[in-house]
Protein backbone atom coordinates (compact mmCIF):
# COMPACT_ATOMS: atom_id res chain seq x y z
CA UNK A 1 0.00 0.00 0.00
CA UNK A 2 1.46 3.38 -0.85
CA UNK A 3 1.83 6.22 1.60
CA UNK A 4 -0.47 8.50 -0.33
CA UNK A 5 -3.36 6.08 0.05
CA UNK A 6 -2.73 5.77 3.78
CA UNK A 7 -2.84 9.54 4.07
CA UNK A 8 -6.05 9.65 2.11
CA UNK A 9 -7.58 7.09 4.42
CA UNK A 10 -6.49 8.92 7.54
CA UNK A 11 -7.82 12.26 6.39
CA UNK A 12 -11.01 10.76 5.06
CA UNK A 13 -12.89 11.52 8.24
CA UNK A 14 -16.61 11.17 8.64
CA UNK A 15 -17.42 12.10 5.06
CA UNK A 16 -15.46 9.15 3.80
CA UNK A 17 -12.94 10.56 1.41
CA UNK A 18 -12.60 7.15 -0.13
CA UNK A 19 -16.24 7.26 -1.08
CA UNK A 20 -15.57 10.52 -2.86
CA UNK A 21 -12.50 9.06 -4.54
CA UNK A 22 -14.43 5.97 -5.59
CA UNK A 23 -17.29 8.05 -6.92
CA UNK A 24 -14.83 10.21 -8.83
CA UNK A 25 -13.28 7.10 -10.33
CA UNK A 26 -9.89 7.88 -8.81
CA UNK A 27 -9.83 4.75 -6.68
CA UNK A 28 -11.56 1.48 -7.39
CA UNK A 29 -13.80 -0.15 -4.80
CA UNK A 30 -11.30 -2.99 -4.52
CA UNK A 31 -8.51 -0.57 -3.71
CA UNK A 32 -10.64 1.11 -1.07
CA UNK A 33 -11.40 -2.28 0.46
CA UNK A 34 -7.76 -3.28 0.54
CA UNK A 35 -6.90 -0.05 2.30
CA UNK A 36 -8.93 -0.87 5.41
CA UNK A 37 -12.48 -0.80 6.67
CA UNK A 38 -14.75 0.18 3.82
CA UNK A 39 -16.54 3.05 5.56
CA UNK A 40 -18.40 4.36 2.50
CA UNK A 41 -19.93 0.95 1.87
CA UNK A 42 -20.88 0.45 5.53
CA UNK A 43 -22.35 3.95 5.73
CA UNK A 44 -24.52 3.58 2.62
CA UNK A 45 -28.19 4.12 3.42
CA UNK A 46 -29.72 2.78 0.20
CA UNK A 47 -29.17 -0.38 -1.78
CA UNK A 48 -27.97 1.56 -4.83
CA UNK A 49 -25.43 3.49 -2.78
CA UNK A 50 -24.21 0.34 -1.07
CA UNK A 51 -23.79 -1.51 -4.36
CA UNK A 52 -22.04 1.50 -5.86
CA UNK A 53 -19.68 1.77 -2.91
CA UNK A 54 -18.90 -1.93 -3.22
CA UNK A 55 -18.23 -1.47 -6.93
CA UNK A 56 -20.99 -3.97 -7.74
CA UNK A 57 -23.08 -1.84 -10.10
CA UNK A 58 -26.16 -3.81 -11.10
CA UNK A 59 -25.51 -7.41 -10.06
CA UNK A 60 -26.95 -10.25 -12.10
CA UNK A 61 -29.04 -13.12 -10.81
CA UNK A 62 -27.67 -16.57 -10.17
CA UNK A 63 -29.08 -19.92 -9.17
CA UNK A 64 -25.63 -20.96 -7.96
CA UNK A 65 -25.89 -18.91 -4.79
CA UNK A 66 -27.72 -20.29 -1.76
CA UNK A 67 -28.85 -18.04 1.06
CA UNK A 68 -29.33 -20.24 4.10
CA UNK A 69 -31.43 -18.33 6.60
CA UNK A 70 -34.66 -18.97 8.49
CA UNK A 71 -38.03 -17.72 7.16
CA UNK A 72 -38.73 -16.32 10.58
CA UNK A 73 -36.43 -15.12 13.34
CA UNK A 74 -37.49 -15.32 16.95
CA UNK A 75 -35.30 -12.36 17.74
CA UNK A 76 -33.87 -9.79 15.34
CA UNK A 77 -30.76 -9.37 17.50
CA UNK A 78 -29.38 -12.66 16.22
CA UNK A 79 -30.37 -13.86 12.76
CA UNK A 80 -28.27 -16.68 11.30
CA UNK A 81 -27.32 -16.11 7.67
CA UNK A 82 -25.23 -18.42 5.54
CA UNK A 83 -24.11 -17.81 1.96
CA UNK A 84 -22.94 -20.61 -0.27
CA UNK A 85 -21.74 -19.88 -3.79
CA UNK A 86 -20.83 -22.63 -6.21
CA UNK A 87 -19.86 -20.07 -8.85
CA UNK A 88 -16.29 -20.71 -10.03
CA UNK A 89 -13.86 -18.05 -8.87
CA UNK A 90 -15.98 -16.78 -5.99
CA UNK A 91 -13.76 -14.14 -4.43
CA UNK A 92 -16.05 -11.87 -2.44
CA UNK A 93 -19.28 -12.25 -0.44
CA UNK A 94 -21.33 -9.52 1.21
CA UNK A 95 -24.49 -9.67 3.32
CA UNK A 96 -26.89 -6.74 3.03
CA UNK A 97 -30.14 -6.05 4.90
CA UNK A 98 -32.55 -3.80 3.09
CA UNK A 99 -34.38 -2.24 6.02
CA UNK A 100 -31.47 -1.74 8.39
CA UNK A 101 -30.26 1.85 8.95
CA UNK A 102 -27.18 0.88 6.91
CA UNK A 103 -27.56 -1.87 4.32
CA UNK A 104 -24.20 -3.61 4.54
CA UNK A 105 -23.76 -5.97 7.49
CA UNK A 106 -20.55 -7.82 6.62
CA UNK A 107 -18.27 -8.57 3.70
CA UNK A 108 -15.68 -11.26 3.13
CA UNK A 109 -12.76 -11.55 0.74
CA UNK A 110 -11.92 -15.13 -0.15
CA UNK A 111 -8.45 -15.93 -1.42
CA UNK A 112 -7.85 -18.89 -3.75
CA UNK A 113 -8.51 -22.11 -1.90
CA UNK A 114 -11.32 -20.71 0.25
CA UNK A 115 -14.70 -21.87 -1.08
CA UNK A 116 -17.67 -19.54 -1.13
CA UNK A 117 -19.29 -20.87 2.01
CA UNK A 118 -19.68 -18.51 4.95
CA UNK A 119 -22.07 -18.34 7.89
CA UNK A 120 -22.49 -15.59 10.43
CA UNK A 121 -25.23 -13.83 12.43
CA UNK A 122 -26.67 -10.41 11.88
CA UNK A 123 -29.03 -7.95 13.54
CA UNK A 124 -32.28 -7.02 11.84
CA UNK A 125 -34.35 -4.10 13.05
CA UNK A 126 -37.50 -5.41 11.37
CA UNK A 127 -38.81 -7.87 8.78
CA UNK A 128 -36.76 -7.30 5.65
CA UNK A 129 -35.20 -8.73 2.53
CA UNK A 130 -31.70 -10.00 3.11
CA UNK A 131 -29.28 -10.03 0.17
CA UNK A 132 -26.22 -12.09 -0.57
CA UNK A 133 -23.89 -10.35 -3.00
CA UNK A 134 -21.21 -12.49 -4.60
CA UNK A 135 -18.33 -11.53 -6.83
CA UNK A 136 -17.14 -14.43 -8.97
CA UNK A 137 -14.68 -14.30 -11.83
CA UNK A 138 -14.91 -10.50 -11.82
CA UNK A 139 -18.72 -10.35 -12.06
CA UNK A 140 -21.28 -9.54 -9.39
CA UNK A 141 -24.38 -11.61 -8.62
CA UNK A 142 -27.05 -11.21 -5.97
CA UNK A 143 -29.84 -13.28 -4.43
CA UNK A 144 -32.33 -12.37 -1.73
CA UNK A 145 -34.71 -13.83 0.81
CA UNK A 146 -37.27 -12.27 3.10
CA UNK A 147 -36.83 -12.94 6.80
CA UNK A 148 -39.66 -12.14 9.18
CA UNK A 149 -38.62 -10.78 12.53
CA UNK A 150 -40.90 -11.46 15.48
CA UNK A 151 -40.84 -10.83 19.16
CA UNK A 152 -41.07 -13.83 21.39
CA UNK A 153 -42.64 -14.19 24.79
CA UNK A 154 -41.51 -12.76 28.09
CA UNK A 155 -39.08 -15.27 29.50
CA UNK A 156 -37.81 -17.47 26.72
Amino acid at each position, binding site marked *: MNTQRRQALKSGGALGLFGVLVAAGLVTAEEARAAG*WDKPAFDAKTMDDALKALGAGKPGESSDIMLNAPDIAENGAVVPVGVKSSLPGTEFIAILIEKNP*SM*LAASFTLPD*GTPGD*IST*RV*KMGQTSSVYALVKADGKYFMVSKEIKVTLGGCGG
Partner: protein
Amino acid sequence: MAGPMRIRAASNGTETEVKVLMSHEMETGQRKDPSGALIPAHHITELTATHNGRVVLSGQFGPAVSKNPYLQFRFKGGAKGDKVTVSWVDNKGDKRSDEVVVS
Protein backbone atom coordinates in the same frame (compact mmCIF):
# COMPACT_ATOMS: atom_id res chain seq x y z
CA MET B 1 -12.98 -5.93 27.49
CA ALA B 2 -12.02 -8.41 24.83
CA GLY B 3 -12.03 -11.95 26.11
CA PRO B 4 -10.47 -14.81 24.18
CA MET B 5 -12.15 -16.19 21.07
CA ARG B 6 -13.45 -19.73 20.89
CA ILE B 7 -11.97 -21.16 17.69
CA ARG B 8 -12.52 -24.65 16.35
CA ALA B 9 -10.72 -25.90 13.27
CA ALA B 10 -11.30 -29.43 12.05
CA SER B 11 -9.69 -31.08 9.04
CA ASN B 12 -11.38 -33.84 7.06
CA GLY B 13 -8.22 -34.55 5.08
CA THR B 14 -8.97 -32.25 2.14
CA GLU B 15 -10.58 -29.23 3.79
CA THR B 16 -10.53 -27.49 7.14
CA GLU B 17 -13.70 -26.12 8.66
CA VAL B 18 -13.28 -23.16 11.00
CA LYS B 19 -15.83 -21.96 13.55
CA VAL B 20 -15.16 -18.82 15.54
CA LEU B 21 -16.99 -17.18 18.42
CA MET B 22 -15.73 -13.71 19.29
CA SER B 23 -16.40 -11.92 22.54
CA HIS B 24 -17.51 -8.40 21.56
CA GLU B 25 -20.31 -5.97 22.40
CA MET B 26 -20.92 -4.99 18.74
CA GLU B 27 -22.65 -1.81 19.92
CA THR B 28 -24.51 -0.25 16.99
CA GLY B 29 -24.29 3.42 17.93
CA GLN B 30 -28.08 3.60 17.53
CA ARG B 31 -29.09 2.69 21.06
CA LYS B 32 -29.67 5.08 23.93
CA ASP B 33 -28.69 4.65 27.56
CA PRO B 34 -31.28 5.19 30.35
CA SER B 35 -30.50 8.94 30.41
CA GLY B 36 -31.31 9.23 26.70
CA ALA B 37 -27.74 9.70 25.50
CA LEU B 38 -26.60 7.70 22.46
CA ILE B 39 -24.29 4.82 23.29
CA PRO B 40 -21.32 5.23 20.91
CA ALA B 41 -20.76 2.57 18.27
CA HIS B 42 -18.24 -0.04 19.27
CA HIS B 43 -17.84 -2.92 16.88
CA ILE B 44 -15.30 -5.11 15.16
CA THR B 45 -14.35 -3.65 11.78
CA GLU B 46 -11.87 -6.09 10.29
CA LEU B 47 -10.85 -9.65 10.83
CA THR B 48 -8.33 -11.98 9.29
CA ALA B 49 -7.90 -15.72 9.49
CA THR B 50 -4.58 -17.34 8.60
CA HIS B 51 -3.49 -20.92 8.18
CA ASN B 52 0.21 -21.46 8.92
CA GLY B 53 0.70 -17.77 8.19
CA ARG B 54 -1.25 -17.66 4.89
CA VAL B 55 -4.45 -15.58 4.79
CA VAL B 56 -7.47 -17.85 4.23
CA LEU B 57 -10.18 -15.27 4.90
CA SER B 58 -10.47 -11.57 5.47
CA GLY B 59 -13.69 -9.96 6.54
CA GLN B 60 -15.19 -6.61 7.37
CA PHE B 61 -17.96 -6.17 9.93
CA GLY B 62 -20.40 -3.33 10.34
CA PRO B 63 -22.44 -2.72 13.51
CA ALA B 64 -25.20 -5.03 12.19
CA VAL B 65 -23.19 -8.14 12.99
CA SER B 66 -24.65 -9.67 16.18
CA LYS B 67 -23.14 -9.27 19.64
CA ASN B 68 -20.56 -11.98 20.38
CA PRO B 69 -20.11 -12.67 16.65
CA TYR B 70 -20.08 -16.13 15.16
CA LEU B 71 -18.31 -16.97 11.92
CA GLN B 72 -18.01 -20.24 10.07
CA PHE B 73 -16.02 -20.91 6.89
CA ARG B 74 -13.73 -23.50 5.34
CA PHE B 75 -10.55 -23.61 3.30
CA LYS B 76 -8.82 -26.20 1.17
CA GLY B 77 -5.89 -27.95 2.81
CA GLY B 78 -4.93 -27.88 6.43
CA ALA B 79 -3.85 -30.92 8.40
CA LYS B 80 -4.07 -31.99 12.01
CA GLY B 81 -1.51 -30.08 14.03
CA ASP B 82 -1.49 -27.03 11.72
CA LYS B 83 -2.18 -23.64 13.21
CA VAL B 84 -5.14 -21.40 12.44
CA THR B 85 -5.03 -17.85 13.76
CA VAL B 86 -7.93 -15.40 13.85
CA SER B 87 -7.36 -11.69 14.52
CA TRP B 88 -9.72 -8.76 14.71
CA VAL B 89 -9.59 -5.02 15.25
CA ASP B 90 -12.48 -2.79 16.24
CA ASN B 91 -13.40 0.83 15.60
CA LYS B 92 -11.75 1.92 18.86
CA GLY B 93 -8.48 0.26 17.94
CA ASP B 94 -8.87 -2.65 20.34
CA LYS B 95 -7.54 -5.88 18.91
CA ARG B 96 -7.38 -9.53 19.69
CA SER B 97 -5.64 -12.52 18.17
CA ASP B 98 -6.13 -16.17 19.09
CA GLU B 99 -4.67 -19.36 17.73
CA VAL B 100 -5.91 -22.92 17.58
CA VAL B 101 -4.39 -26.20 16.47
CA VAL B 102 -6.30 -27.99 13.71
CA SER B 103 -7.88 -31.21 14.94
